[in-house]
Structure formats: structure tokens, C-alpha cells
């Protein structure tokens, strides 16, 4: 490409690339991801309702999922969504918007297993994110357990991280 090698970053953001992200940015990213999961659930609900309507329009009633089913569905969707995103690109949509990337301790991309485990841990203990506010290295409980990091990375591709 003609723009190969041309930095596409604002000058003021360049010093932060590769540094560990703090709790504020990561919380915003997590909130965006929560909205994404909520959207997926609503979309799924609409699809199920639509199918029901098509199949039995006369006896149609809007689906009334139980609380347990809703929480479980949300949990599964969140885990699959986060795990697949981190394994594929290192970033979920919330991370993408806020310019973050989840990497392993040495800066490499997470594997599938570690991504799924981290997604499970995040979905099970979301408050573990708040440990970033206390950790000097901006690490959440999941990061400490799985030896991962979340860094600022505004570029489309992964960059070499700095501890």
C-alpha cells in the first residue's frame, strides 16, 4: 500500500501505545461490550419471536424467557463473544472503540484456550476489573491469574508492548 510505514496515529497518542491501560478506559470498553451483548440478546429474542410468529401466527405470544435462561444466555453470549474476539484480533468491539488490545505478558496475541478462559473469568467475576485501580501495573484479577495485559493500541495491527 502507498501509505505503508506512515504513522496513522495522532501525535499526542503515540507515547501511550503499548502501555498498560487504566481502569477508566477499560471500564468504558467493558460497558460497550455489555451493550453489544445486550443487543445480541435482544436480536435473538426478536428472531425467536419472529420465527414463532411465522410458524404459528394464530397462537402467537411473545416469548417469556425465565430469569435463569436470560442470565445463562447472556453469560454464554458474553463468553463466546469475548473469547472469539480476543483469540481472533486481540480486541472486542469495546476494546476497538477505546483503542485497547488484550495481549499476553510478552506482548503476543492470546491463544484460543486462554482467550476463552479469560472470557469465562471476566463473565463470572466482572468486578475483577476494578483491581486495575489498585494494581500498579493496571492489571485486573483476570490479568493476574492468566498473566495477560490490556494495552493501548490504536493501530489496526498489534504493536510491540512496553511493560
Amino acid at each position, binding site marked *: 500500500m502507498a501509505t505503508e510505514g506512515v504513522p496513522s496515529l495522532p501525535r499526542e497518542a503515540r507515547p501511550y501505545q503499548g502501555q498498560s*491501560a487504566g481502569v477508566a478506559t477499560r471500564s468504558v470498553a467493558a460497558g460497550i461490550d455489555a451493550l453489544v451483548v445486550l443487543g445480541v440478546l435482544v436480536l435473538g429474542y426478536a428472531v425467536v419471536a419472529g420465527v414463532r410468529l411465522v410458524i404459528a401466527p394464530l397462537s402467537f405470544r411473545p416469548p417469556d424467557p425465565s430469569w435463569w435462561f436470560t442470565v445463562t444466555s447472556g453469560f454464554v453470549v458474553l463468553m463466546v463473544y469475548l473469547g472469539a474476539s480476543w483469540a481472533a484480533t486481540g480486541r472486542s468491539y469495546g476494546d*476497538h472503540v477505546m483503542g485497547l488490545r488484550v495481549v499476553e505478558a510478552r506482548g503476543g496475541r492470546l491463544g484460543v484456550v486462554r482467550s476463552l478462559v479469560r472470557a469465562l473469568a471476566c463473565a463470572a467475576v466482572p468486578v475483577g476489573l476494578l483491581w486495575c485501580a489498585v494494581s500498579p501495573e493496571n492489571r485486573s484479577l483476570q490479568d493476574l491469574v492468566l498473566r495477560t495485559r490490556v494495552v493501548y493500541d490504536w493501530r489496526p495491527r498489534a504493536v510491540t508492548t512496553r511493560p
Partner: protein
Amino acid sequence: MAVAVGRVRAGPVVVGTASRLTRVPVVLTRRTVRLLWPTGRSVVAAVLDRVVPLLVEQVVRRLALTTLVTRYVDLDRVVAAVDLDAAAMRLDIDAVVGRADVDAVVRRVDLEAVLARVDVDAIVARVDVDEVVQRVDVDAVLDRVDLTTVVLERLDLDVVLQAVLDRLDLAALTADVMEAVDLPEIIRSSTGSVASETVRGARMQGIAADEAISRLRSRLRSRRAEPPARGLPAQGAPSG
């Protein structure tokens, strides 16, 4: 026959020639002269009127008058003696011009022959072009000229454009423009979506919030790590 006329005197006067045969002088009395004088005078005048023009004509025909005048007449003195100013003052130029048929004169002038004899280069060489140009109001001239129409109708724009392009070093020009333009900024603004200004601002605000939290955390840690002030006993330390 030659005739000589003398004054009438008191005595007898010999007034004529004698015949070659007789050579006898004719003696006229005073009374006779008085009687004959008017008649003879008329005869002599008539003869002179006939003879003198013939003689003068013959003489003039045999003389080169122009040569004689140029040789023996000082024309400069003659002209200097003439008061030309007075003569010019007496001239009624309006009347002269009024009587002149200028159109006829102009028609008879061979202007091309006149122009062919004019050395235009010499005339132009004597003209101070700078002074002439300084007196020209170029702005007024340009105001009266429709330059756009002139350019569009008289210029071959393709040729001009080609000449300009030939003189331009497009590669160097492009390199200069690329250096001057903030290309990354343009790419960011054109890619839109995520790299929009809103997202960029949110990201920068997130970084600023992270730094603020990090500073607060560091300040709290440093307060905890500060040693107790000198002179004050440590809490729980044995006293005495």
C-alpha cells in the same frame, strides 16, 4: 540700314546714312526735323517692338541662363535679403488652404513609394520607448480589454498547458506537497468510522482519566510508604 537719332540742334544736322553710291549726307533743316520727328519716332518704336523681342529670344536661346544665375548670382544673399517672416505674415493661409484641393493632392501622392523611402528602423531607434511606456496608463488599457475573451479565443490552451507541464518537475512538486500536507491526518479523517474525531476524543479522555487515577494511586502509595517524622515516637514503640 542703321538709323541714329540725335538731339535736334540749332544748325543743320546729319541724321541719316549716305547712300553707298552717292555718299552724300542728307542735311535736314530744323523745320524739316520738327515736321518729321513724331513720324520717325513712331516708326522707330514700331521697329523696336518688332525687333527687340526677336533679338532677346535669340540671345536667351543661346545662353544657359540657369548656369549663369548659379554662377554669378549670390542666391544666399538674395534670400537673406528677403524678409520671409513679413512675407509669411502677409500670407492668408486660410485662404490658401481653402483654395487647395487637398483630396486631389492626396490622391496624387504615391504613399507606398513615400513609405518605402522611410527608414522606419532609424525612426524607431530614435524613440525613447521607456519614456513612452511610462506615460501609458496600463491599468486603463487593461480595463478596456476583455482579457478572458482574448485568452480563450487567441491562446491555444493545450499548447500552453503542455509547455507548463514540460517545465514542471511534477515528481519534485508532489514530494514537496506530500511533505507539507499532514497525510496521516487526512487518512484518519477519510477513513472515518472508528478513527473519527469523536472516538479519538473519547480515547484521549480515557487515557487522561487513567493517568489521573494512576497519579492518585501513586500519591496514596507514597503517603503510606512515608517514614514517621523524626522526633515523634513510632506507634507501639517502647517508651522510656
